[in-house]
């Protein structure tokens, strides 16, 4: 399979950034970027990335299971991750997560029926000083309140 020209260019550059013969170094970034484009680490992606980096299929399986950001199942168009780790918990992260569940009608690691939203309770996002924090795909949102969350979800719904 081939990826978009931009991604192909990125991959071409990426594999050169590891020592000769150690191109496996690009495995995790490649899987993640491919997933961003394709929506999930599909069997095709696995086979393709394994081929390009000369790694065995099992070496790909090993990392997919390990890294939480990699997924074989497509997530929602807007993947919402709400942190409930210490700093966020102290400032209402758990309540926020519960609120998001109610608002979207789904639970942890679930996806709305229309495939627009998926929700995940996540570990520390590195935004502790501006807690509670959340990620929508790769966009950070800080100091979230239930009201702000509602507004955000509503506006995302509109952009569909």
């Amino acid at each position, binding site marked *: 399979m081939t990826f978009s020209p931009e991604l192909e260019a990125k991959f071409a550059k990426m594999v050169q950034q590891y020592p000769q013969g150690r191109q496996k170094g690009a495995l995790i970034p490649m899987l993640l970027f491919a997933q961003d484009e394709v929506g999930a680490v599909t069997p095709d992606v696995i086979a393709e990335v*394994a081929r390009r980096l000369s790694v*065995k*299929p*099992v*070496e790909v399986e*090993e990392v997919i299971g390990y890294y939480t950001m990699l997924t074989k199942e497509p997530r929602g168009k807007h993947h919402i991750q709400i942190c409930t780790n210490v700093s966020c918990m102290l400032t209402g992260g758990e309540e926020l997560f519960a609120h998001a569940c109610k608002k979207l009608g789904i639970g942890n690691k679930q996806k709305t029926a229309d495939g627009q939203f998926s929700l995940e309770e996540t570990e520390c996002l590195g935004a502790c000083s501006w807690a509670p924090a959340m990620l929508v795909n790769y966009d950070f949102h800080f100091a979230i309140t239930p009201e702000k969350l509602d507004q955000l979800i509503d506006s995302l719904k509109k952009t569909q």
Partner: protein
Amino acid sequence: MADPITLTINGRALQVPAGTLVIEAAKKHGIEIPAFCYYEGFTLQAACRMCLVEVEKMGKLQPACTLPAAEGMVVLTESPKVVDARKGMLEFLLTNHPLDCPVCDKGGECELQDMVFRYGAGESRFVEIKHHENEKQWSPAVYYDPARCILCYRCVRVCDEGLGVGALGLTHRGVHAEITPSHGDHLECDECGWCIDVCPVGALTSGTYRYKSRPWEMNYAGTVCTHCSNGCKTTLSVRNGEVIRANNRDRSGINGEFLCVKGRFGFDFVHSEERLQAPLLRKDGKLEPVSWSEALAAVAAKFGEVKARGGKFGVIGSTRTTNEENYFLQKFARQGLGTANIDHHRSGDVVTLLDALKGKTDALATVGDLYTTKAALVIGSDLSQQHPLLAVQLRADYRHHQSSTYVVTPGEVREDQYAAKSVRAKAGEELAAVEALREDLSKHESLVILFSDAIKGEAVGKLVAFGDSLGAAVKYVCLQDYSNSRGAMDMGLLPDLGPGYHAAPAAGMSMDQMLAAKDLDVLWVVGANPLENTALASESAFVVVQDLFLTETAGRADVVLPAASAYEKTGTVTNVCGEVQRLKQGPKVMGVKSDLEIMGLLAKELGLSLGIWTADKVFEEIRKTVHGYNVALPVIATGGAAQTTPVNGGVPVTVRPELIRSAGDTLFTSGTLGRYSKMLQGVMEAPGELYKR
């Protein structure tokens, strides 16, 4: 070896070479340090933390499996702190373990059970709900139960480091961590089952053995695998006369615990419903079951008649029957029937090799040599497919001793992964490719050259001349197909050479000539299937076949005598490296007789005096009369392997390369025998494709 150092373990001063791991140092002196993840010969993991010991001047407990012994080190392996840690680890291990020992295949031979029995506490503080994952089937041969898995990574390592297959990995993390097969939900691999074997618990179980038996309900017979020529020792687990498992857990024998898919799972042909269990006699054009006496009488009558009128016999022996049987067969043919027409399916040119070696006996490599040689050259063989044990040995030599392997093959092979050089050479161009490696090869002080049927006839002589010119200690392995291919040659199943490569009384017809002779009166085939793809030219020939199955050849026979397989009899076989090992009887199959017994009964019927025909007696005769076979009996009797030292018997050799052709079996095929193994048929996926990254 490194200089010895002295360390103290539990108050005892011990001397070991510097750098020895503390766990090994202790073991050498009879002190056991428990371990799961430490596995001799494979990379260190330090994951199970069972081996933690107290070391003076070190704050934390140290894993003995990764700690090199140092001068003056003081170690305690049973101090209260250590015992507490060990109990703690076992308690941790059992938290999510299902403790379904009563229904677990491993019960009774489980290392976790043993360890808890010895070192654990009798109760657990764990009252939470256990984390559970269901069992999965990865292939017909391999099942995985993640709940039982303790994650010692032995399976992962034997597959990757031991075999170069690397079909197993680790996925997920934390308590969810589990072993994953190559393709997410299923396994594409060699299906050798080594992973099952090394699993200390019942996490990996075998498709053939699961839920069949408890280990204490079986009888065990240590014998030799009947498939390829490598001669792996295998222990058959037999219950009610039926083989239900094959492994070599005690690591005795030349193969340690290694067995390939054929050795570990390919024993089921023994109990195939297609096994012949009564003699068959052609009556009115159809093969009908008859009694042994009727069948033997019919054969004896025909043999006697043809012999009396000076008719033409053709005798074809087997590459799987024992040395005793082969020896007896050629004696029967030459002395009993007075014919020189005896041969077998040859797959390697040992005859020419011995001729070229001119009496040198130290130039034949053993399986053990492949693990110690500085360099190896593989010519024309996909070693991992065709000679799995030899491949594993070379790989271990590379892993442990950084040896150099050179490969000259027509296509990609698995040895390329670590080969110092891989050269692709078309048929007929191998020697030129070898010559081009001269500079590389002459760098090494020892070299083993393994060659397939790609090198035969004159080429063998040229290869040996090349080896001689290198100025290194060169040894050879002439690769052949089956478990006693080598023994068939050694025992003189050859038209022009008798036992021990000495002159035969007269020269006879080769196998091809027999099959093509229009005037052949009798064709006697013992454990071979020469008519698989060839028609017998003589339409009137009386054909006698001894075999396990109604093969193409048996189908053409006038009399078929049901024979016992190698697993059902005693005797000796000689592997590809000329090492003799003893077979032990495991299972019993009703109605069959060993080929030796069949021949003995026939001899009796014919009134021939060919000597006593028990395996022991015939072997005694072989030891006394066959050059190179005067091997040490105790070694063989105790299940060891003794290398033979055959030499060319001073006979001018007629080079007939066209008679030498390997059947070209893969990991999943084993000539006719393999066709009757459901397991081999079932696991075969895409041999050859599997190893591609």
